[in-house]
């Protein structure tokens, strides 16, 4: 091997080693890299119910009930399961029925009690006229971005 070929091999080996180690670290840490869990994960007890965690899903259409002051209750669903959520506080501008959100809090007697709610919008951009014609009858948004741990592992 010439010196140049040796350096080429060294660079290739470096990249290969880095790529492989990154792959192994990331697949091992897959669960911990999830920014949020989904209702399916909680309902099927795949995460500890005592822990403070983030829950992501779509606000079920027709489930939003506004109570006294800043109290709201709604149901959060992914593609499979749903969970009741209770929250007191200011909601982001994008919060509405059918919207994807990520709530932070913990489970209390079957209800997810949140102390922070963030909106998760999708990657679609269109003028209002177009959106009206596209929306399905039930106003349902896409649940695909909310992958339960089992789906994500696939």
């Amino acid at each position, binding site marked *: 091997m010439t010196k140049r070929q040796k350096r080429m091999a060294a660079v290739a080996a470096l*990249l290969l080693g880095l790529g492989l180690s990154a792959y192994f670290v990331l697949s091992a840490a897959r669960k911990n*890299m999830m920014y949020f869990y989904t209702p399916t994960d909680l309902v099927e007890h795949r995460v500890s119910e005592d822990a403070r965690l983030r829950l992501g899903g779509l606000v079920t259409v027709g489930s939003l009930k506004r109570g006294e002051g800043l109290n709201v209750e709604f149901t959060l669903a992914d593609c499979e399961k749903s969970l009741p959520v209770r929250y007191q506080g200011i909601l982001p501008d994008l919060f509405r029925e059918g919207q994807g959100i990520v709530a932070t809090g913990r489970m209390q007697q079957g209800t997810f009690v949140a102390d922070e709610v963030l909106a998760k919008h999708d990657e679609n951009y269109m003028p209002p006229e177009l959106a009206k014609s596209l929306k399905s009858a039930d106003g349902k948004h896409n649940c695909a971005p909310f992958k339960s741990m089992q789906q*994500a592992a696939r």
Partner: protein
Amino acid sequence: MNWTWFHRLGSPPSFYRFAGTLAPWLGGLGLAALAYAWYAGLVLAPADYQQKDAFRIIYVHVPAAAVSLSLYMLMAVAGGIALIWRMKLAECVLIATAPVGASFTALALLTGMLWGKPMWGAYWVWDARLTSELVLLFLYVGVMGLKAAFDEPRAAARACALLALVGVVNVPIVHFSVEWWNSLHQGSTVLKFGKPNISAQMAVPLYAALLATYLLAGQAILRRAQNELLSRERNTRWVRETLTELGGDPHVS
């Protein structure tokens, strides 16, 4: 295949002249494209059905983020060439790309925060996309710091090249983070198979803004690479001749 053009371009004086000719064109075209993109994006494009006028931040955020990743790839490729072929020009491109890439990474992070606050409800969250983009900024700043820490330019370039190559694992993580993991950040709008997720009136200014940002980043890199070449080759005849051409007398410049 005939490689003479490549070797000619790789020689410092020819690249210096080539960059000097190309840079004003990139700058001029980039400025024109940017003026159109911003006018079309801010005035002509309709407001989004969900995000209203806040969605217009896309016209600065997405180009900055795209350029931040592309420039890292450029820097890593230049680093690979510099390590393997010991090519001086590649070292200069590597050194020149770091501050430009860092500036666009910082812009992507800042505009992302300004977009996140009104839409998500938070300036910053530690999800995979945001965190890996922050790591990208640290990598650029690391390359700049490494360059500054060495007195000898060739040793500096070699260390920078190594760091640039090591950091390249982060690039696919930034890009695919929104697909691999649940994240608050939405998926990709532009680089997506199937039908585009953005209506044409909104997409055209976005493509123009992408083009403009690439051109302007190219201009900045060429200028900085020229500087780096002049500095490296300060004791050679071609630099002396260039300086004489520039100011008649190098003392005046």
